[in-house]
């Protein structure tokens, strides 16, 4: 596969690993990969075993599935259980536990829950089922939000009356800020999220070096991308630089994708605050539909319970999402909390740090 295989070359990887070892020297470093996609890559390709012990990768909050609070999942289940409603969702969300089980369980109880590959496919379900109301359970960072925006614009163009969106889109900068403000921060730098940056660009990360003194390298998702990003972070440190570098120039531009940003602006506005799983409420960290799209807004069309559900007591996802603890340091990891019986969301998505570690990385502990 072009643009994939070249970035998985084992020889080049070995060279980068050697470079990393050299650059790291005898000091210890902890870099946060903000994005769950990176976490997935690290474990899927066994990168963590290749890195010298002095370089630790800390998993960040960039998994849109992991950060959805349980109450929002319950709301989605509630929607799915309304008569005449078809709830459409990305496959990832189907297993995420709310307070009342997951969407898969709601489906098993008889609710009409379907997974879709694309928000446009949810629109297709609405067109194919004029007698049903189709809700799209929208999740994701700025990577995914433009697709929802285009879908909503198209729904309005078509004059659809049986389609709405339960909007849970979040933004990447505010949680990053929240992490940087945490008093016990022990990070040496950040691997910046690649795909969200195709939309937002690399510029928004500048506050990280400027205000917090930490280097950022925006990186792609192939193993060489991640290794190169680590090497580039170490090189910055070694060279005494502290800036935003872009390793993922093949798709990320400094200014991002202005068309996508403009489409988002037509459909969404910032929420004053939004709850993040484990991180609590973060101001201006999520999107909702503007008044223009009120009739496509499931939150306005339906009288959803909207109850806040406290995270399970045992759950330490917040600590994991902030990089404060490693997955296996959570008391329930691998025992009560496994991919089959997830307690926290980090164990659900294969991008979740706990799931990625459990699925791909566990062996290292033995």
């Amino acid at each position: 596969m072009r643009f994939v295989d070249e970035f998985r070359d084992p020889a080049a990887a070995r060279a980068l690993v050697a470079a990393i070892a050299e650059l790291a020297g005898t000091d210890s470093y902890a870099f946060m990969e903000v994005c769950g996609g990176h976490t997935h890559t690290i474990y899927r390709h066994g990168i963590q075993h290749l890195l010298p012990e002095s370089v630790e990768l800390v998993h960040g909050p960039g998994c849109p599935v992991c950060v959805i609070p349980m109450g929002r999942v319950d709301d989605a289940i509630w929607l799915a259980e309304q008569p005449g409603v078809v709830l459409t969702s990305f496959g990832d969300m189907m297993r995420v536990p709310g307070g009342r089980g997951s969407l898969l369980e709601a489906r098993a109880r008889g609710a009409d829950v379907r997974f879709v590959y694309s928000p446009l496919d949810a629109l297709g379900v609405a067109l194919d089922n004029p007698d049903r109301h189709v809700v799209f359970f929208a999740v994701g960072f700025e990577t995914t939000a433009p697709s929802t925006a285009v879908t909503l614009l198209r729904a309005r163009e078509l004059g659809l009356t049986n389609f709405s969106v339960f909007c849970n889109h979040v933004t990447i900068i505010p949680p990053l800020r929240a992490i940087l403000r945490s008093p016990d921060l022990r990070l040496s730098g950040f691997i910046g999220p690649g795909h969200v940056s195709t939309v937002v660009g690399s510029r928004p990360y500048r506050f990280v070096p400027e205000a917090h003194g930490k280097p950022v390298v925006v990186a792609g998702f192939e193993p060489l991308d991640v290794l190169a990003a680590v090497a580039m972070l170490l090189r910055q440190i070694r060279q005494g630089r502290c800036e935003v570098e872009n390793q993922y120039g093949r798709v990320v531009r400094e200014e991002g994708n202005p068309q996508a940003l403009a489409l988002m602006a037509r459909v969404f506005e910032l929420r004053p605050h939004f709850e993040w799983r484990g991180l609590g409420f973060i101001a201006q960290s999520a999107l909702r539909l503007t008044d223009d799209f009120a009739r496509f807004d499931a939150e306005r069309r339906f009288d959803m319970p909207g109850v806040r559900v406290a995270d399970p007591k045992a759950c330490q996802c917040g600590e994991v999402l902030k990089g404060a603890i490693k997955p296996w340091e959570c008391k329930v990891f691998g025992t009560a909390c496994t991919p089959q019986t997830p307690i926290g969301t980090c164990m659900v998505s294969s991008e979740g740090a706990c799931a990625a570690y459990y699925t791909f990385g566990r062996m290292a502990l033995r």
Partner: protein
Amino acid sequence: MCLGIPGRLVEIVDAGQHLATVDVSGVRRTISIRLVAADGPQVGDWVLVHVGFALAVIDEDEATRTLEAMEKLGAAYQDEIEAFGSSAIP
């Protein structure tokens, strides 16, 4: 976050609706290219596909440059390692 896969544009299906077919190793799917419309993507271009949308047109030259830079990065310190290897105190 956010699975993104490189695919090659093989057909513009509906220019008005910004629909095009991409090919990923012989697997085809119609996606929306509305998010990259201003870049004027052409058949033969590679795009990054996410949830049925092209998020970006892949800059092939930039990809080559990145590969070269990575190689250099690896090689530079490889040399350095070798240099170290021969000069370091045993």
